[in-house]
């Protein structure tokens, strides 16, 4: 069936809830907090997306998937990238953070006011997503993607990634 009447905002949000982040497939783009706004005009939908990281290689893939998901419901979609206000991990819901933890990635804590040059002012240790211990240490500021750091748990000896608070 091809939709001819204008969809409701709830319809569009529901479709977007099914679009996964290619890097973290347990989260939808809505849970990630990168969909900033939608606008509907007839069967034309404009989706405003803000990048998680400016150089994030997943953004093109996300745009393609968003357009594809809406097109499969007969909608003509356009993605607009907005930079301001800059994305923050605080826009991730608690449910999303718990999904991340269950997936084996330590979720970001709340962002805190930091000095411009954050050198040598390390935050509290990141709890291990596997055993919950705080006996963890940072191995590298950058993990498999720039948005994560590499940690190791000294209690269960499991290495893991931490989605950095930004």
């Amino acid at each position: 069936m091809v939709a001819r009447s204008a969809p409701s905002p709830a319809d569009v949000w529901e479709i977007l809830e099914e679009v996964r982040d290619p890097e973290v497939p347990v989260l939808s783009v809505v849970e990630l907090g990168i969909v900033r706004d939608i606008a509907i005009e007839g069967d034309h939908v404009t989706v405003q997306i803000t990048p998680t990281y400016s150089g994030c290689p997943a953004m093109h893939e996300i745009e393609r998937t968003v357009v594809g998901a809406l097109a499969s419901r007969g909608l003509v979609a356009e993605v607009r990238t907005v930079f301001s206000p800059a994305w923050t991990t605080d826009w991730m819901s608690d449910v999303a953070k718990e999904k991340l933890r269950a997936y084996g990635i330590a979720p970001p804590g709340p962002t805190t006011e930091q000095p411009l040059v954050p050198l040598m002012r390390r935050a509290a240790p990141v709890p291990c997503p596997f055993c919950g211990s705080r006996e963890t240490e940072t191995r590298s500021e950058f993990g498999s993607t720039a948005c994560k750091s590499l940690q190791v748990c000294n209690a269960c000896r499991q290495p893991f990634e931490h989605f950095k608070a930004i």
Partner: protein
Amino acid sequence: MPNGDFGDTIVRQFLFSLHALFVLDALQRCGHPELAGIAAKAVKETRYHVRHSGEWLVRLGDGTEESHERVQRSLDRLWRYTGELFEGDEVESRLVAQGYAVDPASVRDAWSAQLREVAGLATLTVPTEVHMQRGGRDGRHTEHLGHLLAEMQIVARSHPGATW
């Protein structure tokens, strides 16, 4: 510059990203809303680069005798390229006058003070040499750039039109 010593990589990244951080911080308050928004985003990310390279600088500088010597040598070798970080060109001056850009010279003091603080933690000596390499802003580069560009283009040049 050829790849090789990790000390060179870390010192270069620290000198540059610290500069970028101060420039982007000021750019957040420029008169162009979109540019200011991009800068606000970039500040968050650049801080990680400063922390990453800065902590390595301290670890290497205040590490073993060999790591200290090598990273000090890197700082001495790369110092001559830092002068140009604070030079603008004519286009930039026009944009600064219109409130759309940051005068690179205006971040020099903050950059220098922060560098000295980190160098202190790393037990490194900041060079006092005043001769600075110039020309990059006018498109005159060292011979290394040609090799670098060739290497970065090799896949696209060898497989025209390739997609993946």
